[in-house]
């Protein structure tokens, strides 16, 4: 069901850069928009997104689907998502392998799941429901984690791979999150990459994180760390030319700095895999 697209290298669309995106076409191949920020019917955000969509491909990236929650899937959320997908016609639709709501309470966080057969059955059923509703494959991102569960019977990469096989969904592989979780939970990040089927990977996330001494915190508030660039190279060698998305969500700098970091991803890809073919724009 899922097929990788040749999108190139993009950045997250953030409010701080709206004026620039309205006035020009910044030198990026595509943008990723946080789904929930554009679900309102009117106002500036959706007008900006529609303009940007006329200029370049847009990927919708959700944070509140709560695919792993034991609560019923929010009908209101699915209605809003389906309406936005029809309006924007995004290249891809993604969210996170996590849960963030319970008993009707939204925690607004990307909380980890125990990787058990019970959780796999549960999430697989909900992924299928969402995919039927939006009429396309969903991509799920590996979250940054600070804790794991005694009940887990499989690794995160085994869980994600099984989910892809069962439902036809894809993986949004956050390279920074692999690095952060590997350090926090004590696994080998390269083993994580080796455990993922290249066919399942839709695009990469790259972002900065903070070092809090005893753990790494997924902050998205700075440049990509050297260790994450190294892991990105490992990922390129295994998965080939996969689109990349540079995230910068806090202490957001001028657009040029974000674009420069994305161009660095493009340069590293060229070093590893040779120059990319030209893209029509």
């Amino acid at each position, binding site marked *: 069901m899922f097929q990788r697209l040749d999108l190139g290298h993009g950045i997250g669309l953030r409010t701080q850069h709206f004026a620039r995106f309205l006035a020009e076409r910044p030198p990026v191949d595509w943008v990723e928009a946080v789904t*929930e920020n554009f*679900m*309102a*019917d*009117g*106002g*500036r*955000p959706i*007008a900006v997104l529609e303009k940007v969509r006329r200029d370049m491909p847009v990927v919708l990236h959700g944070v*509140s689907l*709560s695919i*792993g*929650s*034991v609560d019923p899937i*929010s009908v*209101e*959320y699915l209605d809003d998502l389906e309406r936005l997908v029809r309006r924007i016609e995004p290249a891809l639709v993604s969210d996170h392998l996590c*849960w963030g*709501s*319970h*008993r*009707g*309470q*939204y*925690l*607004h*966080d990307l*909380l980890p*799941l*125990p990787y*058990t057969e*019970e*959780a796999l059955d*549960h999430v697989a059923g909900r992924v299928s429901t969402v995919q039927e509703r939006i009429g396309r494959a969903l991509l799920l991102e590996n979250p940054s984690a*600070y*804790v*794991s*569960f*005694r*009940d887990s019977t499989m690794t995160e990469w085994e869980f994600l791979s099984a989910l892809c096989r069962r439902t036809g969904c894809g993986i949004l592989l956050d390279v920074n999150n692999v690095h952060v979780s590997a350090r*926090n939970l*004590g696994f080998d990040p390269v083993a994580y990459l080796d455990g993922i089927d290249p066919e399942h990977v839709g695009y990469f996330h790259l972002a900065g994180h903070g070092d809090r001494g*005893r*753990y790494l*915190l997924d902050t998205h508030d700075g440049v990509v760390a050297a260790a994450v660039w190294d892991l990105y190279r490992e990922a390129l060698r295994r998965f080939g030319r996969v689109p990349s998305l540079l995230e910068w969500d806090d202490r957001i700098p001028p657009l040029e700095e974000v674009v420069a970091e994305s161009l660095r991803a493009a340069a590293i890809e060229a070093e590893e895999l040779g120059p990319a073919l030209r893209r029509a724009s």
Partner: protein
Amino acid sequence: MTLAETQELFRGLVTGELPLEDDRLAGCFRGSGELPAPERLAIYRSMYAARLVDGLRETFPALAGFLGEERFEALARDYVAAHPSEHHDVGRIGRLLPAFLRTHPDPDRPDLADLAELEWTRNEVFFAPDGPVVGPEALAGAGDVAAARLRMAGSLRVASLAHDAAALWRCLESGAPVDPPAAVPTPVAFWRRGFDVLHCPLPREEGEALRAALHGEPLGSICAAFGDRPDPAAAAHAAISSWFLEGWVAAVRAGA
């Protein structure tokens, strides 16, 4: 432990409803010598609180600026404990903050509930649906004008504030000194021009008239709100004409 039990435990630990010393924690979560499980859960707990406080600060920047970091965070934490988020959009978390401030008023600044209502309404208007508007010529095709009804623009709101929060907001926006709170019942209209959110205080009669228009009352009833004016017809005409000019009217429907 089932998935449901795990999530219930995790939710309680993250929100602070359960202590990090809860007996079940060790059986559910895996920690390490360097970073034991309770400290790992504490990371999630601190992020939960910070995210909701940040969400409220984004929606209520003037209130946050007025209270200062410490007082605003204390208010936000009390509020979130009383009203946990029930919507996938974190931007909706502040929906009940004005009401919370009315039931938990600041003894020195009873006008803060109105300031919060002003900021919340501006936030609603920012995301309101777009739509076409009509000019006063639309009345020409409506037949009996007194029976005609106005459909108001989707972004238009009117709030009844107990204090002059618009003046307080203006001082906070411009950095001017803030006056003591003044109990002045003030209707305030909110609307959007392009992407800009605007608001302005209204005379009492015009506030009543605008509320009647938003409720779909016929123009005859709307004009009755100006009955106490020396020249009611002229006052009603001036006010309703300005509504068309401001882009507050989406359509005119002929009366039945």
